């Protein structure tokens, strides 16, 4: 069973990241957001959806997100930081409480920032040693800005 890091632990990955729109969706699929939006009345239950860089989260505004156990956000390149805003908007604006899973080309050295904007699942590529990645699964112990975990900036806590 493939593994991922979720809530700070290495666990079995129960879901399949379905990258194309063609395959049939199952209850364990994470399907493309665009596919789900187009087929939402017929697609049936899925584990969740994933958002590609460039798509944004606006089209989810009126969707009941509690039906998704997971929302994935793809990083086409780790320097493409759009997903940081998407995760934060999912948490802070759309109130999503389920797993937000980083997919694609993010790297372990970004975990500190990813955690702060609301990610709690990290599906690394197969070449990544998850034990080593877990060692980087923390933010600095102090932050000046508010974030998803602590909305109050340091100036309200100093």
């Amino acid at each position: 069973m493939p593994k991922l890091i979720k809530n700070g632990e290495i666990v079995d990955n129960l879901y399949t990241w379905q990258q194309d729109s063609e395959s049939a969706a199952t209850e364990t699929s994470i399907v493309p957001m665009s596919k789900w939006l187009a087929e939402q009345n017929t697609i049936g239950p899925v584990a969740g959806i994933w958002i590609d860089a460039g798509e944004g989260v606006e089209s989810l505004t009126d969707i009941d997100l509690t039906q998704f156990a997971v929302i994935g956000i793809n990083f086409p390149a780790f320097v493409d930081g759009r997903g940081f805003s998407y995760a934060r908007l999912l948490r802070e604006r759309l109130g999503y409480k389920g797993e937000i899973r980083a997919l694609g080309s993010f790297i372990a050295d970004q975990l500190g920032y990813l955690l702060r904007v609301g990610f709690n699942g990290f599906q690394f590529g197969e070449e990544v040693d998850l034990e080593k990645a877990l060692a980087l699964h923390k933010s600095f112990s102090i932050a000046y800005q508010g974030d998803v975990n602590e909305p109050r900036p340091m100036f309200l806590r100093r």
Partner: protein
Amino acid sequence: MYQYDAIDQQLVDERVAQFRDQTRRYLNDELSEQDFLPLRLQNGLYVQRYAPMLRIAIPYGMLSSDQLRTLADISRRYDRAYGHFSTRQNLQLNWPKLEDVPDILAELAKVQMHAVQTSGNCIRNTTTDQYAGVIADEVVDPRPYCELIRQWSTFHPEFAFLPRKFKIAVNATESADRAATQVHDIGLHIKKNEAGDIGFKVIVGGGLGRTPMVGVTINEFLPREDLLTYLDAIIRVYNQQGRRDNKYKARIKILVKALGIEEFRKRVDAEWVHLRGKESTVPMSEFERLQGFFTEPAYQALENNPASLTSKLAESAGFARWYERNTFEHKKPGYRIVTLTLKKAGQAPGDATSDQMEKAATLADQFSFGELRVSHEQNLVLSDVRQDQLVDVWEAAKEAGFATPTLGLLTDMICCPGGDFCALANAKSIPIAEQIQQTFDNLDYLYDLGNIDLNISGCMNACGHHHVGNIGILGVDKKGQEFYQVSIGGASGHDASIGKILGPSFAQEEISDVIQKLMDVYVSNRTDEERFIDTYRRVGITPFKEAAYAKAN
């Protein structure tokens, strides 16, 4: 100036430990070149033509004498005993060893300094007026606001991987814009409204590089408590919507231009609606806390123009010249702002040796409450010198090579390190600066020409701000040969404008001749009060162009 508390200190210490681990993993092949690249850039480390280059932040230009001594010590121990002060109030070391950088950062952390976000596609060092807090006509001291922005931008979790670099500059006076705010991604002008409330005029989408643009106003008056939520809104729109397919079209200026300011403002406002008034709204207590770090030093009650000053001015033309050019009016009677110029002929503009750094630190301790500033124009500033001690400062500055009395004149050039150091450069820039310094060495003539900004960049990235020089020189590569394109009419102040290219580029040895011809056109066309830029704006580019390309008889 701002002093770290345990919180600030812990954060930079943790950053040093993090980078030490990243460097170790890179050197052990556990972290690839590609993955290490943005991580080292966000710690100021480039890999350059001959060696790495480390860019150390000097937040909004403020430096204590102890910090400057540490920079002198670091540059001596880990580099070749000099450093380069850049246009964005940073110090660049050109020859550190990559494996030494964690140790250098640890040394910096001991004196409350760092190299955080001095490079990479993130929010960079916030800059401001080098005379902040000591001039009479500013709305308020901009430094507490700069520190607020520094803290907000440091390790901002959402904005560490933007489409491109992001630079913010702050100005607080109508009389001048010494921080080139209109050619920054965001320029902030501190204002007071009719009710006396403090806020910001917000300018967005300025920038140099391949597509130079002067910024446009997005908000005429942003109340100061809303500053951070508004910045979050602007950058969140940019992070999601800025182009990422082409690095030359990735700055926010391209997005603003493509959408138009109306549409861009609409999108920012739509984002801001959700943020305004929330937790990141800055409470008065935080403004007061930050202002508390920038209180006045123990000024004495003094009179302007003490006898020791006026008599020296009368008897020494050299001193009078230095006083006129390199010192500036202070808000307190009996004090003066002194610029220690780093523009001595034979020394690259903005460079200072370790010895010079130590001498400047000593001068600051003796004459200016132990503090210095670094200017956009690549000079050092002693902000609080007693007028009755100016002669002593002048003597000491002369001896240390800081008293070249050309501040603001043709030879007070802004110049990037260029092809002598930089891997990006198409051409060398330091030899051009040297050539101009050697050719225009007659002080009387330079004084007669008056204020002229001459800026030199070794490539289109425009670190030397050539677009906004009254005269701009840009190094270009023509079939493997170094050539130089000359533009005129740029300006970086409140009257910011982008210069126009004169025409085909020139060979290196022709540059001084060309500058001479431009000066001749200016001198023969000017009216009594006109600066070079004013004459240019009145007569246009044609006479300059004709003179520059006229065939010799």
